[in-house]
């Protein structure tokens, strides 16, 4: 209720602003985002400086809260009141939802001029364009979620050499770690983290084709299949390797467990790398980065994008400058070096990134070539939020022991069809 009152007030304010507007001769952009953590904020400064050189002032509109839930609530009231910000950080299907509301700006002219079509991975373009094929967003980075992060010291101690190739090897390694007295998996029991692990397990269990059918296309047959049941069984198996205090733990605390040597591995997207680097650990020497065992060659992606909203003619010019700056190779590299992700264009050199980053870039480019690049369900690139959360419900309920694997498969099919 409070939000609605707020939006009503915002409506009044917007009405007033209509009369007051136009007084600003100076160009400015207003950007709504949730990058408020130290490193992220520093990375954004690069963009800010780049724009200020072109005479565009940056009006920061940060809304704290990791996954952007709060930011979306603010955005809703701004757009309802007809006072949309210039650009908004957004993920996956949310972009499409907003595009369907008909409130986004068209960037196609700029995209054609700068040849975005050639440099942005195809799977990503589907989300950065609306249903008419017009560019509506500028992707900032590409994260990928099917990673495994490991403490090198523990791996050496129990004698893990080279890559853990598949599920069976993973279980063997986890058993050894358990015997050695460590917590094998640093696990954060929050719905989105459960789903992040789950999608990697599904990919590892059923392969890329199955992943796409089940968690991108939501084919009821794939969702209700025996392969899906195996995936749930494997989730139960992983449950044996987590500490009893896992529920509700934030992802960065789980990463800290690996950094401190309390736990051996974490299954998490590449943003976890930032935590390792900040703790002054070196990839390859102190920690290991590899794909979730059994998912090598395939990349599940998640990309932060700046979605451009329709603004008045006087602000349009600055908006185009912002979009162009976001897509510039300098910003893409500078930003992603700090953020842990890789650039959203495949044509920039990755020399400045660390070993894990270079590996990620190479794999992204390869996956793009071979069509092995799929949207991450856990991060809004697999389904609209209603379906996504329906899957979260089932995965979390199952991982916490509410459902058996059989019940989970049945509940998954039902929940997805109810939410669609």
């Amino acid at each position: 209720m409070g939000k609605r009152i707020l939006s009503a007030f915002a409506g009044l304010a917007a009405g007033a602003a209509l009369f007051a507007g136009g007084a600003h001769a100076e160009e400015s952009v207003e950007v709504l985002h949730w990058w408020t953590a130290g490193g992220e904020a520093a990375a954004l400064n690069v963009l800010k400086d780049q724009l200020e050189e072109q005479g565009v002032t940056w009006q920061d509109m940060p809304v704290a809260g990791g996954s952007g839930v709060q930011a979306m609530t603010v955005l809703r009231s701004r757009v309802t009141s007809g006072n949309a910000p210039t650009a908004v950080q957004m993920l996956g299907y949310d972009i499409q939802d907003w595009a369907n509301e008909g409130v986004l700006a068209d960037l196609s002219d700029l995209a054609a001029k700068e040849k975005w079509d050639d440099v942005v991975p195809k799977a990503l373009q589907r989300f950065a364009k609306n249903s008419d094929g017009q560019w509506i967003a500028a992707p900032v980075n590409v994260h990928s979620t099917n990673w495994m992060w490991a403490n090198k010291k523990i791996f050496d101690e129990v004698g893990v050499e080279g890559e853990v190739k598949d599920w069976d090897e993973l279980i063997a390694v986890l058993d050894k770690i358990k015997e050695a007295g460590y917590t094998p998996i640093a696990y954060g029991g929050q719905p989105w983290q459960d789903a992040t692990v789950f999608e990697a397990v599904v990919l590892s269990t059923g392969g890329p084709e199955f992943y796409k059918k089940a968690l991108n296309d939501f084919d009821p047959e794939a969702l209700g299949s025996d392969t899906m049941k195996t995936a749930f069984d494997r989730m139960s198996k992983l449950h044996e390797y987590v500490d009893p205090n896992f529920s509700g733990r934030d992802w960065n605390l789980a990463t800290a467990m690996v950094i401190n040597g309390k736990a051996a591995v974490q299954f998490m997207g590449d943003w976890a790398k930032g935590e390792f680097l900040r703790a002054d650990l070196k990839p390859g020497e102190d920690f290991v980065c590899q794909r979730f065992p059994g998912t090598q060659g395939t990349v599940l992606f998640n990309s932060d994008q700046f979605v451009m909203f329709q603004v008045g003619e006087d602000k349009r010019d600055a908006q185009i400058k912002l979009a162009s700056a976001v897509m510039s190779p300098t910003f893409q590299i500078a930003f992603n070096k700090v953020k842990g992700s890789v650039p959203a264009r495949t044509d920039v050199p990755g020399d400045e990134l660390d070993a894990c980053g270079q590996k990620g870039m190479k794999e992204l480019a390869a996956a793009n070539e071979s069509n092995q690049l799929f949207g991450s369900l856990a991060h809004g690139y697999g389904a609209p939020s209603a379906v996504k959360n329906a899957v979260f419900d089932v995965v979390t309920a199952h991982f916490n022991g509410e459902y058996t694997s059989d019940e989970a498969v049945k509940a998954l099919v039902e929940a997805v069809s109810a939410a669609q």
Partner: protein
Amino acid sequence: MTATSNVTTEPVLRRSSGATALRRGLQDWLPRIVLAPSFAVIILFVYGFIVFTAYLSMTSSTLLPRFDFIGLENYVKLFKLPNWWIALKNLAIFGSLYIGICCALGLFLAILLDQKIRGEGILRPIYLYPMALSFIVTGTAWKWFLDPGIGLDQTMHALGWASFHFDWIKNRDMAIYTVVIAAVWQSSGFVMAMFLAGLRGIDTEIMRAAAIDGAGPWQLYRRIIIPMLRPAFLSAFVVLAHMAIKSYDLVIALTNGGPGRATEVPATFMYSYTFTRSQMAIGAASAVIMLMMVASIIVPYLYSELSAERQQ
């Protein structure tokens, strides 16, 4: 009482009838003029938005409000959702235990404090103090206290009691009871204050008369005092029941609906469906159901209060 008030008002009436018509008109209108702005604001921002929410619940709104009318479909969907049933079940557990334990504990504390003990002035605020905290603070503090990794469990282990085991907050079946514990801790002092006021209102003559008739303390409380506290019970019930139905902040701070979705309650359900899951219409439907729950408690209460007033 009525006789004396009649005597005092009569001369006032006579005097005002002698005043000018303008002044009388103004006097008639003044209360309405003074109340009009707040009345208008309440009509719009409370009742207006209730109507708006009810209407939204009968549309196909998802990300943003939409204004097509699709009937009661969302209510059918809502009652098919396992999450909603979990929320209702949790509310039933939480609500009944919260109200029951708060009343029992509050009454017990009030009776103890009513024994004309020394230091009541110090004890009473101590019991009442948790009420001064917001539910967010209560929830966060209890989250740390109950966390097996850092709280009670860990402390007991550190003190050498290795077999001590209390992990309710991480246990799917028990987590809702930790919400009850925290909520009871917060509110029972407040209920105690209500009962204490009720106890103080009871005529000591009645107690003395009962004592002379040979009633022991147990009988005195059971047969006379507690039945006479009926209005206090009713107020406590109404206050606690609506707090239970709208409880949101405590759950968010304490368990955030977890582990899994074990502590989901209607209010957290409403927020997540409306604002994070882009199913605004379903969220609005659940809000309407919550409103109906609160109304089913408050309306009979108000009705009985008002009719009691009219009888007097």
